[in-house]
């Protein structure tokens, strides 16, 4: 759009302000092009799976640790190991007093809602998007329990999940690099 402005300025210098006004009116890019079509609420709802840390977007349903464990063994253990600790690069469960500081949900993830969002989006790796909303709640409950963040009888839902305080949350800071003559 810059070329339009450049053209206009050139005309301006060449003494014809009235003509300039006309040219600008005809040549300026419109505020809107009216390309594309309006999205219906229905189609937005059909693809909108985002979840915010305050729980907005979490679907109805309730998850239980026991059901989650069974699902985990069946669908997640092939990659993550039976307890989520066996495969270092896909480690999910933080063990207490772990001196290797291996990053896992319990010691690195700042929000519990992310767990639900990510499992629903991307897991299981060989069948993404195949879990029901309730199955995702079950798995979320099991993984929170395995990381010692909830008791075995705690149920996970849209109401309870956002209230779980993740231990790593307090360590997160925003980027403090600004360029310039300093290394951060």
């Amino acid at each position, binding site marked *: 759009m810059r070329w339009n402005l450049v053209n206009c300025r050139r005309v301006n210098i060449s003494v014809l302000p009235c003509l300039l006004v006309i040219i600008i009116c005809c040549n300026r890019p419109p505020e809107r092009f009216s390309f594309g079509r309006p999205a219906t609420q229905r189609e937005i709802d059909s693809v909108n799976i985002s979840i915010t840390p305050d729980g907005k977007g979490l679907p109805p349903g309730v998850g239980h640790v026991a059901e989650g464990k069974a699902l985990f063994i069946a669908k997640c253990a*092939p990659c993550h190991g039976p307890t989520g600790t066996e495969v270092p690069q896909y480690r999910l469960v933080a063990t207490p007093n772990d001196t290797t500081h291996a990053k896992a949900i319990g010691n690195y*993830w700042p929000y519990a809602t992310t767990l639900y969002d990510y499992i629903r989006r991307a897991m299981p790796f060989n069948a993404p998007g195949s879990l029901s909303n309730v199955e995702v709640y079950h798995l979320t409950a099991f993984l929170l329990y395995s990381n010692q963040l909830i008791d075995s009888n705690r149920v996970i839902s849209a109401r309870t999940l956002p209230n779980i305080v993740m231990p790593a949350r307090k360590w997160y800071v925003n980027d403090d690099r600004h360029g310039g003559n300093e290394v951060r």
Partner: protein
Amino acid sequence: MKQDQIKRRTLLRAAAVTALGSLVPGLSARQMPEAAPEDPTKVPGTPVGRLGTRSPFEQPQKKASDISARSPLQDFYGIITPSDLHFERSHNGVPRIDPQKYELLIHGMVERPMVFTLKDLKRFPALSRIAFIECSGNFRSGKTTMTPQEICGLTSQSEWTGVMLSTLFREVGVSPKATWFLAEGSDAAVMTRSIPVRKGWEDAMIAYAQNGEAIRPEQGYPARLFLPGWEGNTNVKWIRRIELSDQPFMTREETSKYTETIKDGKIRQFSFDMDARSIITYPSYPQTVEKGWIEIRGLAWSGRGKITSVEVSTDAGKHWHVATLQEPVLDKAHTAFRYGWYWDGQNTEIMSRAVDDTGYTQPTLQQLVNARGTDMGGYHLNPVTAWIIQRDGTVLFKPEKFR
């Protein structure tokens, strides 16, 4: 059930192989180039064809792992990465998307939620820009026998063409109260990142073309988000949805990944800008050199602006000399540099450091450790990279330990 037992690594490898599918048919032919005739002026040449080819004597290739493939930086001339050698990183393979069915939905805190087809996107004013994209996890070390490709091959540069996101923001009427937007891909990971709205107004683009042709599947066909100078992961490929919001979504890729531990146990998040960096690509491992004049060549870039200078040391960092920058020197772009050096045949170390127009100087690994601590994470590491030149002309990478 059988599928469930497949090891994830195998799956990843399978995905990588699929992603590289376009390369595979050419491989066998390339491995055995037909012998060139003794005198090419005495035999008719190959007839004209529909597609150009690489000389069978040239075999640049990406180096693929399970999850990414690195650009052969040492094989490049100038600043444009050939599209089939652009680095790749995907989170569950490269999706196959029908351009006729492609749609981009923009909704959330907007006046008019809209859907744009690929054809719609191409009707808007088109802009082209040459800039790099670099993965923020782009530093490998640990042994002397490493090439530039292996050390930092997750950076590449293209001419990207598309519609400015600001144009689409005006089209949908983004609320002045919106501060973040979610960018979502239509890959099997439905990968998402939260991006500050200001970047959308500033210089973000929905790119549908790369180096003069439709964007390659590995780079996001038919359309991707392009955020000049920002870490590669935020440049969401195969983009299908943008949701305007007043808070970040805290997705997995901006919390448990793409964040880095720094000092005092802190974890740094939303580290978008790629800091200035450079690397000498010639001479580098496994090349060899001869005593005499050597043109040291390399690439420098900064996600914050233009490269203002590159300095080269040929005596292990004791003295630094200003290298010549090859025009064009573009904003947030790979910039080629060179420095003429007479090598006396003695053991030495050569290295380069870039300075950008914010005044930032590429740090040493030690400076990064000093700033971030020994527990520093693997993202956003841009240290000065040294090559050891040995008396016999062999060139080795100089790995430095920091953990």
